[in-house]
C-alpha cells in the first residue's frame, strides 16, 4: 500500500509523458505536413504565372484606312489619355486630324519599342502621314498590342500577375500601412496585432478588427475555406509561420498583391491589383495616380461593400480614409492627399475588351500547336491575330440584329442565337470570334462548337468541281427541272427549290446566284459526288463527307469555324491558309517558343477558283445575297453565299471582301425552325459587321487564260452591257466561243486596232 501510491503517481506521469510526446509528435507531423503544403503549393502558385494575351497591334502608314476618330478611339482603347505628351508615355494630344503621341515601352513579337514621340496626321478616311519627333518621315508605326486577357493554358483562369518589378512603390508601402503596419517585423503572425484587435473588439462589443497579417490573409486565400473555427485559425497561423520561414517578405507581399480579391465582374472574379487596375480604371497599374491607387487599396477591406460602381459614396469615403492614412504614414504629403480626395473616382465605363469566345480559340490553338510543358513556363506572352475593331463590330452587329429578329418573331419562349467569325483569308488569321449573343460571358461557343447542316453554303464546292472539269463555265446552260432519285436505302428523294418554282434552262452563273436546288443537284450528279467531296476536302474540310446526293444541298454538318476554313480557300484564290489565332508565343525572356508561320498551300486551280469567285460576286449583286449592298458603302464588291438548312433551322451567310472573310450562323440552340433564310437572318449581321470594318472591294488579280465576257443573266447568251439590260460580266476561259444574242454579240470579235480605228473615225466625224 505504502509503495503503491508513488507507483501510481509514476504511472500517471509516464502516461502523461507519453501523451505529451504523442501529442507533440502529432503536432510536429501536422506542422511538417502544413509546411509541405505551403512550400509545394506556394512554389507552384508563384510559378504558375498566366500567359498574357495580346491582340494584333494596329499598323499606321500613309493610306491605312484609319480616320482621326478611329485613331482616337484606338488610343483610348489602349488607355492612352489626352494631355501633354511631353509629360511622359501614355499621353496624346489631338488637334483636328493631327496627333502627337508619346508611345509607351512595349514588347512586340519581334522587338521591344522604347518610349517614343511621334506625330500622326489622319484624314477623313485614312492616315495621311507620320513623322518622328525630329520631323523626319516615318513610313510605318505600330500602336501598342492591346492586352485582352490572361490565360492559364491548362485551367483557364484570368489574372494579370505582377512581378516584383511591376509593383509601384506607393502600392507596396500603402498596402502595408493600411492592412498590416508591422508586416516587416512579424514572422507571419502578429501577437500585438491580435491583442490590439481583441482590445478593439472588446471595447466595441463585437468583431471590428481581424488582426490578421497579410501573410495570414494570403494563406487563407490560397489554402483554406472561409469557415471561422479555432482549428482553421490555428492552421492558418501555422501555415503563415511556415510560409514566412521559407519565402522572403517580398515574395509574400507580391503574391498577396496578385491574389487579393477586389471585385466581381459578372461571373468573373477580379483578383489582384493588376487586373483590378485594368478592370476599374482601364490603365496599367504603373499609370494610376495617388487617388486611384488609394481606392484599390481601400477595396481590400470590403470589395462588395465598397464596390465603386454600385456604392460610389462609400467608395469615395473609403478612398479618402486611405488617403489620410497614407498621409499619416508620410507616404504622401498632406496637400497631395487633400487634392486627391477632391477628385472624382475616375472609373472607366464598364464593359470592354473581354473576349472569352476568342480566348477559347486561343486556348485550343495553344493546345493544338504547343507542347504542354512549354506552356507551363511562367510569364509567357501570347500574340494573337485578334483585331479588336473587327471583334467589336461583329459583336455589335450580331447582338443588334438578334434583338431585332427576336422582336419580329412569334417565338416567345426562346431567343435566337448566333455566331460570327471574321478572318483574313490571305493569311488564315482569325481576327474575331463571337460565340453567342452574350458576348462577354463564357459558355457554349457556337462559333467553334455548334455543328449544323450548312445548306446552300455547300453549292460553291459543287460549282467549283464542275468548273475544274473544264466542261462547264459561267455561261453553260443548266436544267432546273424536277428530279427524283432512288437512294441506296431504297427511299426516293425529290428535292425542290426554296421558292417551289421551276426555272427551266438557266445559265450556271444565275443558278448559283439564285441558289437553285434542282439545277445544282443535276449539275452535281453530272460532275459526280466523289468529285464534289474531293473538292470540299481540298478546300479544307477535315472529314470527307458521306456520298449521299443530299450532300449537294448541304446536309453535311459543319461548325462556323470549319466553314471559315473552307471559304478561306475560295477567298484566297485557291490557296488554303491554315487558320490561326496565335501568331507567336514568347517566353519571359522574350524568346519565341515556336513561331507560327503563314501556311499557304495550293489547294484548287486558281483559274477555276477565280471563275467561281466572280460568280459569287453575282450572288450579292443579283442573287439571294443582294440585300447586302444596301448595308455596304456604295460600289463595294463582295462575294458570298447564303445558306438555309431544311425547315429554316439554320440561317447562314459566308462571304468575303478584298480584306476580310466572315461567316455568320443564326438559329435556335434547340434546333427549332427559325423561319429565316440565310438572306433574312445571317446576311444583315454579316453586312453590318463587314461595313463597320474598313474593307476593300473583292477584286482578285485575274489569272492569265481567263477573260471577262458579258452574258445575259437570264439567257446566258453573249451580249454587251449596252445591248442587254440584264448583262452581267462573267469570267470564262480565254477564247472560248459563247452563243451570242442575235444582234448584240460582236462576233467575230474585232481586233483592238479595228476598234481604235472605228473610235477615231467616230470622233473625227
Amino acid at each position, binding site marked *: 500500500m505504502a509503495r503503491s501510491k508513488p507507483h501510481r503517481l509514476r504511472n500517471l506521469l509516464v502516461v502523461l509523458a507519453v501523451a505529451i510526446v504523442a501529442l507533440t509528435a502529432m503536432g510536429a507531423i501536422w506542422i511538417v505536413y502544413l509546411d509541405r503544403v505551403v512550400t509545394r503549393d506556394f512554389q507552384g502558385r508563384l510559378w504558375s504565372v498566366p500567359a498574357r494575351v495580346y491582340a494584333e497591334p494596329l*499598323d499606321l*502608314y500613309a*493610306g*491605312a484606312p484609319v480616320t482621326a476618330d478611329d485613331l482616337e478611339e484606338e488610343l483610348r482603347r489602349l488607355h492612352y489619355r489626352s494631355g501633354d505628351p511631353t509629360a511622359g508615355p501614355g499621353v496624346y494630344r489631338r488637334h483636328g486630324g493631327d496627333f502627337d503621341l508619346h508611345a509607351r515601352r512595349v514588347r*512586340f*513579337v*519581334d522587338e521591344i519599342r522604347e518610349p517614343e514621340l511621334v506625330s500622326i496626321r489622319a484624314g477623313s478616311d485614312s492616315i495621311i502621314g507620320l513623322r518622328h519627333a525630329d520631323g523626319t518621315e516615318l*513610313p*510605318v508605326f*505600330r500602336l501598342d498590342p492591346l492586352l485582352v486577357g490572361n490565360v492559364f493554358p491548362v485551367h483557364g483562369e484570368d489574372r494579370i500577375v505582377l512581378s516584383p518589378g511591376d509593383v509601384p512603390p506607393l502600392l507596396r508601402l500603402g498596402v502595408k500601412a493600411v492592412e498590416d503596419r508591422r508586416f516587416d517585423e512579424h514572422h507571419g503572425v502578429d501577437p500585438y496585432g491580435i491583442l490590439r484587435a481583441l482590445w478593439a473588439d472588446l471595447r466595441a462589443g463585437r468583431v471590428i478588427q481581424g488582426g490578421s497579417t497579410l501573410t495570414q490573409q494570403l494563406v487563407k486565400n490560397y489554402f483554406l475555406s472561409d469557415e471561422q473555427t479555432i482549428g482553421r485559425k490555428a492552421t492558418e497561423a501555422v501555415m503563415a509561420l511556415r510560409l514566412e520561414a521559407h519565402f522572403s517578405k517580398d515574395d509574400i507581399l507580391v503574391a498577396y498583391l496578385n491574389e487579393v480579391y477586389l471585385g466581381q465582374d459578372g461571373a468573373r472574379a477580379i483578383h489582384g491589383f493588376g487586373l483590378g487596375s485594368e478592370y476599374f480604371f482601364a490603365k496599367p497599374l504603373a499609370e494610376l495616380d495617388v487617388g486611384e491607387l488609394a481606392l484599390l487599396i481601400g477595396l481590400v477591406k470590403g470589395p462588395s461593400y465598397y464596390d465603386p460602381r454600385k456604392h460610389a459614396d462609400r467608395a469615395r469615403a473609403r478612398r479618402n480614409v486611405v488617403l489620410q492614412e497614407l498621409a499619416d504614414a508620410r507616404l504622401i504629403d498632406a496637400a497631395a492627399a487633400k487634392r486627391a480626395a477632391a477628385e472624382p473616382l475616375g472609373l472607366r465605363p464598364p464593359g470592354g475588351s473581354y473576349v472569352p469566345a476568342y480566348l477559347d480559340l486561343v486556348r485550343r490553338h495553344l493546345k493544338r500547336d504547343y507542347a504542354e510543358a512549354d506552356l507551363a513556363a511562367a510569364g509567357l506572352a501570347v500574340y494573337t491575330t485578334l483585331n479588336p475593331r473587327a471583334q467589336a463590330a461583329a459583336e455589335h452587329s450580331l447582338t443588334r440584329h438578334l434583338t431585332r429578329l427576336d422582336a419580329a418573331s412569334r417565338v416567345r419562349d426562346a431567343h435566337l442565337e448566333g455566331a460570327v467569325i471574321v478572318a*483574313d483569308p*490571305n*493569311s488564315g488569321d482569325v481576327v474575331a470570334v463571337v460565340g453567342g449573343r452574350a458576348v462577354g460571358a463564357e459558355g457554349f461557343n457556337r462559333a467553334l462548337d455548334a455543328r449544323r447542316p450548312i445548306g446552300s453554303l455547300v453549292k460553291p464546292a459543287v460549282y467549283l468541281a464542275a468548273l475544274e472539269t473544264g466542261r462547264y463555265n459561267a455561261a453553260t446552260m443548266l436544267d432546273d427541272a424536277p428530279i427524283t432519285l432512288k437512294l441506296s436505302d431504297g427511299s426516293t428523294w425529290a428535292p425542290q427549290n426554296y421558292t417551289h418554282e421551276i426555272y427551266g434552262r438557266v445559265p450556271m452563273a444565275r443558278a448559283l446566284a439564285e441558289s437553285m436546288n434542282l439545277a445544282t443537284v443535276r449539275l452535281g450528279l453530272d460532275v459526280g459526288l466523289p468529285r464534289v467531296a474531293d473538292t470540299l476536302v481540298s478546300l479544307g474540310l477535315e472529314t470527307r463527307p458521306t456520298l449521299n446526293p443530299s450532300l449537294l444541298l448541304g446536309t453535311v454538318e459543319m461548325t462556323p469555324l470549319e466553314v471559315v476554313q473552307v471559304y478561306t480557300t475560295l477567298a484566297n*484564290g485557291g*490557296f488554303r491558309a491554315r487558320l490561326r489565332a496565335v*501568331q*507567336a508565343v514568347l517566353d519571359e525572356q522574350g524568346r519565341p517558343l515556336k*513561331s507560327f*508561320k*503563314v*501556311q*499557304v*498551300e*495550293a489547294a484548287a486551280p*486558281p483559274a477555276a477558283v477565280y471563275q467561281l469567285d*466572280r460568280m459569287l460576286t453575282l450572288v450579292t*449583286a443579283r442573287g439571294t445575297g443582294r440585300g447586302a*449592298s444596301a448595308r455596304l458603302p*456604295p*460600289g*463595294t*464588291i463582295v462575294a458570298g453565299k447564303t445558306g438555309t438548312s431544311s425547315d429554316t433551322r439554320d440561317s447562314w451567310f459566308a462571304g468575303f471582301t*478584298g*480584306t476580310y472573310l466572315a461567316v455568320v450562323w443564326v438559329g435556335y440552340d434547340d434546333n427549332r425552325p427559325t423561319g429565316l433564310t440565310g438572306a433574312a437572318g445571317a446576311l444583315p449581321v454579316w453586312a453590318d459587321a463587314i461595313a463597320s470594318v474598313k474593307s*476593300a472591294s473583292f*477584286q482578285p*488579280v*485575274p489569272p*492569265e487564260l481567263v*477573260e*471577262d465576257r*458579258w452574258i445575259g443573266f437570264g439567257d446566258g447568251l453573249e451580249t*454587251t*452591257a*449596252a445591248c442587254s439590260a440584264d*448583262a*452581267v*460580266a462573267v*469570267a470564262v476561259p*480565254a*477564247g472560248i466561243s459563247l452563243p451570242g444574242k442575235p444582234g448584240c454579240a*460582236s462576233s467575230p*470579235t474585232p481586233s*483592238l486596232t479595228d*476598234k*481604235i480605228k*472605228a*473610235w477615231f473615225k*467616230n*470622233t473625227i466625224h
Partner: protein
Amino acid sequence: MVQEHHSLRGLAAGLTAALLLSACSLLAPHPSTSQPPTPQTSSPQPQGSSPQPSQSPSPSPPAPHAPPPARENHLSAATRSLVAQARTQVAHGDLPAASSTLDRALRIEPNNPLLWIELGRLRLAESDAHQAEGCGRKALALASGDRGTQAQAGRLLADALRAQGRNQEARDVESQPFMNSSP
C-alpha cells in the same frame, strides 16, 4: 451610238494607260519606288452590279496569244520599309522576327506578289521548302501580267521544288515563257 461612243472612249483611255505602263516598264527595268501602294486595284469598278476586272480594257476578248496587259508590281513606302527591316533581321540571324515583320507587310498589301516572294525566300532560308513552294505558287498567281515578277516568282518556285528533290517540276517551271524576262 452614244453608248458605243462612250465605251470606245473608255477603251482608248485604257489602252493609253496600258501603253504608258508598258513604256514605264521599258524605261524602268527596276521597280520604281514611288508608286501607288496597290496598282492591281487602281482602276475603279464601273458599277457595283456588274463587276469587271480591272485589267482588261474591254469586255471583248483580246486576240489569242496576245501578251497580257502589262502590269508592274511595286512596294509601297510602308511595305518597303518593312521589307528592309526584315532583311536586316535576317542579316542578324533573327529569322522569326523577320517572319513576323513580313506578316505585317502582308497584312498591309496581301496581294502584292513581291511580298510573297520575299516570304518564300525567307522560308527557304528556314529550310521550309514546302512552305516556300506555297509562297512561290501564290506569288506566281498574283504576278499575272507582270513578266518581271513572274520570273522572280518562277525562280523561287523552282528553287523550292529543287530543295524538295522535285527537279523535273523545277525544270518545267523554268521552261515557262515568262522565265525569259530579265529580273
